[in-house]
C-alpha cells in the first residue's frame, strides 16, 4: 500500500479543513448542553481519559490488563492534580502523528469513533505545532535524543558512527535511527543493521547478546534496558549525531482538542508544577530514565 499516504493526508489541507468543519459542527451540537470545554465535561464525569500508545514500553503498556509506564503515571499525576480520576485508552498508531491526533483527539477513527480528552507523548516541534488547527500541542515536558548503548567488550572505543562498521546493531524497523543508518555513508552500515518490529524487541536482542549495540531515543532506550533486566554490561546511553535532514533530538508535549482551551490551561498549570517540584523527574527515575529538560541540548 501507499507508504506516503499519511504525509499526503497531512498536506491535504483542503479536506482536513472540510472534515474539521464537520467535526466542529458535530461537537458543537453534542456539547451544547455540557459546556463548551472538555474541562467542564471531565469535571462532570469526575474522570479524564488519556489516550496512550498501545504496547509502547517504557511509556505505556499493559501487564495483565493493568496500565503501566511513564506516561501512565504521568497521566495519573495530572488527573490527581485536577482532582479527577484518570482513565486510559490505548490505540494502534497510524502511519504518523497526524493520523493519531485525528483518530484519537479531534475526529475519531472511522470505526468506533470515540475520542479521548488528552494525548500524551506528542511530538512538539515548533513548526509542527504551528501548523495544527484542530488541536493544541502544549506543555512541552521532555526532550528525546537518539542514543546508543553498546557492549564494551565489543566496542573498546565508540565515538563516531563509522565505529559501528562490522558490528551488529539492533534498531526498530522504520525508526529514525533505522532510516539514517541505512542511508549513512552510502550504505556503509546496511549490512550491520538488524531491524526489529519494535524498540523493545531490538533492546531485548541486545540484552540477550544477539546484537553488539542498540540505538533508540534515550528515554526509551534507558527504560527498555531496565525493563529487560540489563545487568550492567551495557554502556551508558550516548548521543548519536545525525546529518542532513535527519533529526536526532526532539521535544515531547501533550495535546487536547482545539475546542478546549480551559482544559489546556489547567493541564499546562498542573504539568508546570510537576516539572518544578520534581514529581515528573521522579517518575522518570523510577523507570531508570534520566529526565531531560526540554530545550537543553
Amino acid at each position, binding site marked *: 500500500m501507499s507508504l506516503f499516504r499519511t504525509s499526503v493526508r497531512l498536506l491535504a489541507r*483542503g479536506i482536513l479543513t472540510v472534515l474539521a468543519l464537520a467535526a466542529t459542527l458535530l461537537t458543537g451540537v453534542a456539547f451544547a448542553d455540557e459546556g463548551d470545554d472538555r474541562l467542564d465535561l471531565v469535571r462532570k464525569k469526575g474522570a479524564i481519559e488519556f489516550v496512550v500508545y498501545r504496547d509502547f514500553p517504557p511509556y505505556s503498556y499493559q501487564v495483565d490488563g493493568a496500565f503501566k509506564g511513564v506516561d501512565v503515571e504521568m497521566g495519573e499525576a495530572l488527573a490527581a492534580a485536577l482532582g479527577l480520576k484518570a482513565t486510559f485508552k490505548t490505540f494502534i498508531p497510524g502511519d504518523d502523528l497526524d493520523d493519531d491526533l485525528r483518530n484519537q483527539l479531534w475526529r475519531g477513527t472511522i470505526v468506533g469513533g470515540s475520542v479521548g480528552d488528552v494525548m500524551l507523548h506528542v511530538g512538539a516541534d515548533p513548526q509542527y505545532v504551528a501548523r495544527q488547527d484542530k488541536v493544541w500541542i502544549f506543555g512541552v515536558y521532555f526532550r528525546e535524543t537518539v542514543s546508543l548503548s553498546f557492549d564494551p567488550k565489543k566496542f573498546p572505543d565508540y565515538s563516531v558512527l563509522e565505529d559501528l562498521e562490522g558490528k551488529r546493531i539492533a534498531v526498530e524497523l522504520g525508526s529514525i535511527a533505522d532510516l*539514517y543508518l541505512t542511508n549513512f555513508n552510502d*550504505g556503509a552500515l546496511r549490512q550491520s543493521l538488524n531491524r526489529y518490529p519494535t524498540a523493545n524487541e531490538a533492546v531485548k536482542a541486545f540484552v540477550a547478546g544477539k546484537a553488539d549495540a542498540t540505538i533508540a531515543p534515550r528515554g526509551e532506550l534507558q527504560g527498555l534496558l531496565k525493563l529487560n533486566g540489563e545487568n550492567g554490561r551495557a554502556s551508558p546511553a550516548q548521543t548519536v549525531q545525525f546529518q542532513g535532514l535527519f533529526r536526532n533530538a526532539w521535544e515531547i508535549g501533550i495535546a487536547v482538542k482545539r475546542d478546549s482551551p480551559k482544559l489546556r490551561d489547567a493541564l499546562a498549570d498542573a504539568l508546570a508544577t510537576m516539572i518544578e517540584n520534581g514529581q515528573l523527574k521522579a517518575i522518570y527515575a523510577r523507570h531508570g530514565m534520566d529526565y531531560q529538560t526540554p530545550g537543553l541540548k
Partner: protein
Amino acid sequence: MNHKIERTSIARAVGLIGLAAAASALPAVAAVPVTDAMIANDQNTPNDVLTVGMGFSGQRFSTSTQINSDTVVDLVPAWSFSMGGEKQRGQETQALVHDGKIFITGSYSRLWALDQKTGAKLWSYEHRLPEGIVPCCDVVNRGAALYDNLVIFGTLDAKLVALDQTTGKVVWTETIADFKGGYSYTAAPLIVKGKLITGVSGGEFGVVGRVEARDAKTGKMVWTRPTVEGHMGYLNGKENGVSGKTNATWPGDLWKTGGAATWLGCTYGADTNQIYCGTGNPAPWNAFTRPGDNLYSTSTVAINADTGKIEWSYQGTPNDHWDFDGVNEFISFDMKKDGKTVKAGAKADRNGFFYVLNRTDGKLLSASPFVTKQTWASGVDLKTGRPIESNNRPGNPGSGEKGSAVFAAPSFLGGKNWMPMAYSGQTGLFYVPANEWGMDIWNEPITYKKGAAYLGAGFTIKPLYDDYIGALRAMDPATGKVVWEYKNPAPLWGGVMTTAGNLVFTGTPEGFLKAFDAKTGKELWKFQTGSGVVGQPTTWEMDGEQYIGVASGWGGAVPLWGGEVAKKVKDISQGGSFWVFKLHKSGKATVAQN
C-alpha cells in the same frame, strides 16, 4: 482466440444445466452450486455474473447486445437498493449475479443478497469490525467471489468470510493477517480451480506482500507465495522454495520487510494456468536506502496456479521512489498484430505506461504512455524492459542538503489507480480510466511516529489541467495509440465495462453512470445516481431482458488525499445504493413490483 471458441460450446452446455437446476430448485432451499466449469465460462454466459472482472481474465466484456449503441438512449432505472445506515462511504463493489440473487458488498465490510427480479433484500451480513482499526484509504470493498454454495469476501480487519448464498449464515472465516499490524482487505477474491486466491493489504512497515491460495470450500491454506525475494513459499504446509534469490536486489535485511503488498488481487490466464498479481511499492519509502531493483515490488508476477511458484515477473518501476504502487490488474487478451495472434496481457500502471506483455513468458512487447505527462521516465527500453529515467528523483535526505521539492507526474495516485479498465475483443481496444495529475514531492523532516521524529515524504497533488483530471481513453494495444478519449472534470475512480453492443460504461464522481460508443467515444447516455460513482458496472440478462447494475456512493482515496483536487470533489454528496437499469418498454411498467 481459438481457446475461447473451443470453450463456448462447453459454456453453453453448462449454462443450460445451471438454468435447469435453477428452475427446478426454485422453491427449495439449497442454491445451485457454482462450479469451476461455470466460473471458467463466465464471460460467455450472459445470464450470470460469477466473477468480479466478468471472467477469469478480467476483461469486463459482456456478449450481451440488447442494450447497444442504438438502444441505449432508452435505458431507464428498473430499481434501486439503498445500503442504508450511516455507513455511507465509497462503494467500489461489482455485483455478482447467480441463481436468482444479486450479491453486492459495501463500505464497512457489509454484504447483501438481493432478489434478482425485484431488488428486494433477501439477507445482509454486517461484519463486526474491531474498534480502532485504521484502514489506510477508505472503508471500501471491491466485491465478492462465488463458489459452490458460498459467497466469500474480505474484510477491513483482514479476514475472509464465507457465507451461505441462501441463508447468509457464516460457513467459515479465516484470518489473512493481524489487523493490529495495519493489515486490511478490500479486493475481490479470485476463484481458480476450487482455490480462493487473495493478496494482502498492509500498512507502512513490516509488511511483506504475498499471494495465498485456500481451499474455497473450507478456507484451508493450500499455498502461499511471498512477492518479496528471499521469503519462503509454502505448499500444503511444506517449504516450496524462496521467491527469487535472497539479497539479489535488496541490501542487508531490508528484504525482510520489503513491502510489495498485493492489495488489489489477481487475474487468471486459463491457457497459461498462471495467476497474475500486481505488487505495490517497496519499503521503506526512501529509495536511497535500498539500492537495487527491489524485486518483486511494483511488478506483475505470474504464479503457477497449481505449484504456487513464480513463473515470470515484469517490473514497471525498479527502485521506486514515487509510490508508483504497481498493483494494477493484468488483463489477458489475444492481440492481433501484423497478421499474427499473440498471447498477450496488458496493464495500465500507476506510473503512466500501458504495458503489453507476452503472457506466457512476461516478455515486454510494448510500453506506451496513456497519460499526457510523465516526468520520471521518457520511455521504456524494449530490449531490456527497463524505464529510461529522466533524473526526477527527490534529493537524498542524508546528503546534508535541504531536500527541495521535485515535481513528478503522474502523481502517486497514479495515471490509473485501482479502478479496473476493460477490453473488448470486438473493437480490439482497451478502455482505460486515467487521471491527469502530478505532485510536488519532498523529504519531510518534521513528523512523528509513536512520539519519535522520523523522516517522511511530503506531497501536494496538483491537477495538470484546469478543465479536467479524469480521462477515459481507448487504447489500441497493437499500436499503443489513444483512439479516443472522454474528459471528465473530477478524477475518474470507478471501473469500466464494455459490451458487444458497442458500448463502454463507466461512472463519474459527479454522480453519473455514462455510456459511450465503443468505437468513437461519443457519449450516448448518462444517468444521475445521486452520489459519486466509484463502483464497477456489470451486466446480465434475465427473462429476455438485459440489465446494467452499478453501485453509487462517493468515497475512496481521492477525498482523503486529493490536496488541490479535493476542491473539485468537495460538494459531492455521500451515498450508498445499487442501481439497476434496463431498456424502457412502451406500455409496460418498468418498475418492478414486489
